[in-house]
Each structure stands twice: as C-alpha cells, then as structure tokens.
C-alpha cells in the first residue's frame, strides 16, 4: 500500500481538485441565488376577504406609508403619480406583490416581500377606492380557473407571450425594464395586471380581451403553474439560450472529462 500512496496525488493537489472546487462554488452560488430569488418572488396568496379594518384605518396607513410620494389627497407629487382613478384593483396589485412601497426610483419597481397584511392592503385599497374610484375587483368566477384552456393559451400567445415568454417565464425589455415571470402570480393579480396595465405593461380593457377571454387566459396560466413540463427539467423555460448554454457547458464538459479519463494511463 505504501507504493500505492506514493503514486497517488494527494487530494488537494489532484488536477480534478480545481474543477471540483469551481463546480461546488457554482452550485452553492446558484443554489443560494435561486433560493433568494424564489423567496423574493413569492407573493402571498391574497384573496379579497371580509376586512376587519375600516376605510379610516386605510387612510391612516396611506398617510403613513404612501402620501410622501402620492400626496395626502392622492393628487401626486414630483416623486410619484396621482392615484385618481387607479382604483382598489391597482392598489391591491401594487401592494400585494410588494412593488409598493417603492424600493427606489429605478427603471422598474421590483417584486419584494410584502410590507402589509392582507387586511391592511384591503383597507388601503378601500380608502383609495372611496376617495377616487377606479377599476374594482372582478366576480369570483373570472378567477376560478375553469375557463377554456386552449382559447386562453392562444390569446396568451397573441397578446402576452412576446414579453412574458410563451411559458410565462418572463423576459427582458429595454433599458433595465423586464416582464416578470408568471410562475407564482395569483389569479387576481393576473386580472389586475391586464385591467390596470401596471408600469410599462399595456392595458387590456374588456373590449380588447372580454371578461371571458381574461378568464380563459387566467385558466391557461394557472394550468401552466400546476402542471409540470413533459419534456423534463425546463431550465427556466427560457428556450434555446438556456438549453444551449447548458449543453455547451455541462454536455461538452462531461464529454471532455470522459475523453481525458479514457486516454489517461491507468494508475
């Protein structure tokens, strides 16, 4: 065994050690990042529920958390737009996804951990709706996910997929803006996004996509969230770029490792 030890390269100096170290480093970085972004993207399941907080509570919350930018009377300031006519739906969308309160003046408000409880969001929304009404919550049947899946998927491909990706994985826009992925978006927030057109998303009013159309699109998206990809690991559903990168790095990398092993002399 002594001779065996002499020939063997000690673990740290092995030529595989550097590769293994880089691999482990990449795995840890990727894992931590994936975990962190999943935690950030996670939005709480908020269905409009019977609120125990009143409009007056909403007004206090608004004055404490929103009025600096949006003005004490929703009139807007230099730092933020007026909220006349945005309605409870937009308030609920912006606050329940953590986009508001705004993190920083940047190309786009990112999703982040939600700052308020469901009741507080509800109270804020009722206050804004009471002062200057706008789009309201839809009938629960629009969000039930029982619509026509095929029709919904076709409408999604025509109206939404160019930005949000055909699998709802999101995508880049110009100058740091992006269309977010729809993997964890709630039915109500999908509806709210179509009706209110948050940030750079165009508005899809009921004459463009009827309530029935919206119900179909929401159903198709919910179905995509619940069903796995039949083709195996989806690599983020980003298409040829992610798949090509994976096969070039890991596929060809493995092939090179195997060739080195085949041609190396046995110890």
């Amino acid at each position, binding site marked *: 065994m002594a001779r065996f030890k002499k020939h063997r390269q000690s673990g740290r100096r092995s030529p595989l050690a550097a590769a293994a170290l880089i691999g482990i480093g990449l795995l840890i970085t990727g894992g931590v990042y994936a975990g962190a972004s999943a935690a950030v993207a996670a939005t709480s399941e908020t269905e409009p529920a019977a609120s125990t907080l009143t409009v007056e509570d909403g007004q206090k919350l608004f004055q404490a958390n929103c009025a600096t930018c949006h003005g004490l009377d929703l009139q807007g300031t230099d730092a933020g737009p007026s909220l006349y006519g945005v309605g409870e739906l937009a308030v609920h969308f912006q606050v329940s996804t953590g986009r508001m309160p705004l993190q920083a003046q940047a190309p786009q408000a990112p999703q982040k951990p939600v700052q308020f409880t469901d009741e507080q969001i509800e109270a804020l929304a009722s206050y804004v709706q009471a002062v200057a009404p706008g789009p309201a919550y839809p009938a629960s049947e629009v969000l039930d996910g029982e619509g026509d899946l095929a029709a919904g998927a076709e409408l999604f491909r025509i109206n939404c997929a160019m930005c949000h990706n055909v699998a709802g994985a999101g995508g880049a*826009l*110009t100058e740091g803006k992006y269309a977010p992925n729809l993997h964890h978006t709630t039915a109500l927030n999908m509806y709210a996004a179509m009706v209110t057109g948050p940030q750079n998303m165009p508005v899809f009013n009921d*004459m463009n996509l009827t309530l029935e159309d919206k119900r179909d699109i929401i159903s198709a998206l919910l179905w995509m969230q619940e*069903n796995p*990809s039949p083709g195996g690991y989806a690599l983020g559903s980003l298409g040829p770029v992610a798949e090509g990168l994976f096969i070039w790095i890991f596929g060809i990398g493995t092939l090179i490792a195997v060739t080195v092993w*085949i041609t190396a*002399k*046995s110890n």
Partner: protein
Amino acid sequence: MAHDVDPLEHERASWKPSSGLAVEVSDPAVNPGLPPHRERITDKDPAAMQRAVRTVYTLFYLSVAASIWAVVAYMVFPLDGTLAAVHNNSMFVGLGIAFALLAIGIGAIHWSKAVMSDKEYIEPRHATRGRDSTREGAIAVFEAANEESGFGRRAMIRNSLIAAVVASVIPGITLFRGLAPEGEDPVELLEHTMWKKGMRLALDPTGRPIKASEVTLGSAFHVIPEELAKLSHHEGYLEEKAKAIVLLMRLPQEDLIEAEDRKSWSYDGIVAYSKVCTHVGCPVALYEQLTHHLLCPCHQSQFDVADGAKVIFGPAARPLPQLPITVDDEGYLVAQSDFTEPVGPSFWERH
C-alpha cells in the same frame, strides 16, 4: 509487428535540409524516446487486480439491472394521458436506458485500462510519400486508361459527356424556381398586403372589428384585417397574416410627434404600425406603454412609436411602416389604404 525493412527508408531523403538553407543544423534535437514502462498498480498488487475485476463485472451487472429497471419503469409509470405521466415515464425509462448503456461503456473502458494486458508497442506510421516505383505505376495506370478509353483522343464523346453532366443540374434549378409563387410577381407580392381602403381593423384571432372608442389610453391591440379571419389556411391565411399584422396603440395626443403629411394617418392619438420588423421580419410587439417604445425580441431593435416608429436602437434600417387609419360611419376603425411602403425586411428590389 515484425518490420523487416525500415518503413521510412524511402522518405529519409526528404528529411535532409534543402541545399538552399544557409545554416546547417549541427545540433538537431535528439529523440528522447519513450519513458520507461511503469507498471500499473493492478500488475503489482493482486488485491488491486481483484478489486478492478470486481468493479468491471459489478458495472456490467448494474447495466443488466438498469435495463430491467427501464422495462419495470415503463410499466410502473404508465402513460395515462396526463403530462405528469409523460414526464415520469420518459424520465425513469430514459434514466434506466442511459445508465444501462453508460455502465457497459464505463465497464469496458475500465476493463481495458486496468485489467487487460499492459504491454507497450511502437508501431511507426507508414510514410506519407509513396515509393518512387508506386508513383510511376500510378501515372502509368492513368496513361493506359486514357489511351485505352480514348478520353483525350475522342473529343466528341468527352465533350458530350461534360454537356450531359452540366445539363443534369438544370432540373434542380427548375424545381427551386417552383418554390416561388407561380403566376404572380414575387416583388408585387412583397410590396402589397391585404389592407385596402375601408377595410376594418379587427382583433386577432377572432376577427371582431374594433371601434375607436374601445381603444383606451395605454392599450395595445393586436390587429388583423377583418377579411383575413374569413380566409382558410388553404387560401393563404398564414401568408396574408404574415404581411398584414398590425399593432394598434393609443397614446396621449400631446406625446405624438407627427410628420405634417402623416397628421391624417392617426385618429385621436390612435396609431397603427406594421408588426413586421424591418430588419429580418420578426414580429415586433413588445410595447412599453409609458416610454412608447417598441422592442423587437430577435435583435433588440427599438422603435419610438411616439415619433413615427423611427429606429432608436438596434440593427433595423427603416422605421416600421405606418398604416393610415380613420373611422367609418359606425365608429369602427378602418384603413385609409394599404401600407404606403413594403412591410418587413429589405429585398433586392427595395433598399
């Protein structure tokens, strides 16, 4: 392995430095030869050999087990019509087959590297240059063939053969020509779309006509000509759609910068632009309602919808063609005419 003659003998001459060289190499590099043979651990230690043998047959038996697993998995994860079943079935059957084949390969390589005989041989490459006699023989064969066939002498036969070979390519060219539209001028087809004066703008894919009042501020409508929805695929639905698709947007009137001759092309802040990118024809539809920028997803060309869809970034060469629109008596949006320029990327007759 026995080599009676030096296989490189007839090539040695070409290794001498040419007489044109000014410097004679007095100390050429000496061939160090192969390093001394090093015995493998499996040659020196019978226990190691035993381990290697065990590894090899374990791999082969694992391969058997994986093959059986693939068959079992096919039955355990049946295809019952759901996507989850397809996912499980292909994954587990695939894993079994992949491992079965991989284990055979790894086992075979390990067998040859660690267990099979480890003697070293030197087998020189054969020379690149043929022996002079071989080369002369080859020339003689060609000359004899030319003499006996009369290829060089009988010019009529040779030239007719060359003509026949050239002619045999012509049917291919004809077939390729057949891929282009027949009986129609391709340039004419590229320059015109289905839009005509008075044709209503309709929703994709239903073909429901759009009223100007329905297009609220910040909206983006994906539009086709109303008549297109009635076309079947046999009547060229996709060909017509590929040219006629339009994106309809409503901007605040004060944001619109319009050329003097195009002021009548929009209606109350509603503008319609071709959705076919002027670079290589991808559908441009990533509309940002606050910046009024349109982004092409293929090569990141950006168009400013507020300013005549002019190119503000990327490889596109021209602004997106604008569809002149107005409203009819019933309030529906209609085209004033076809596009006034060809849509989509450049072609030979359009620069």
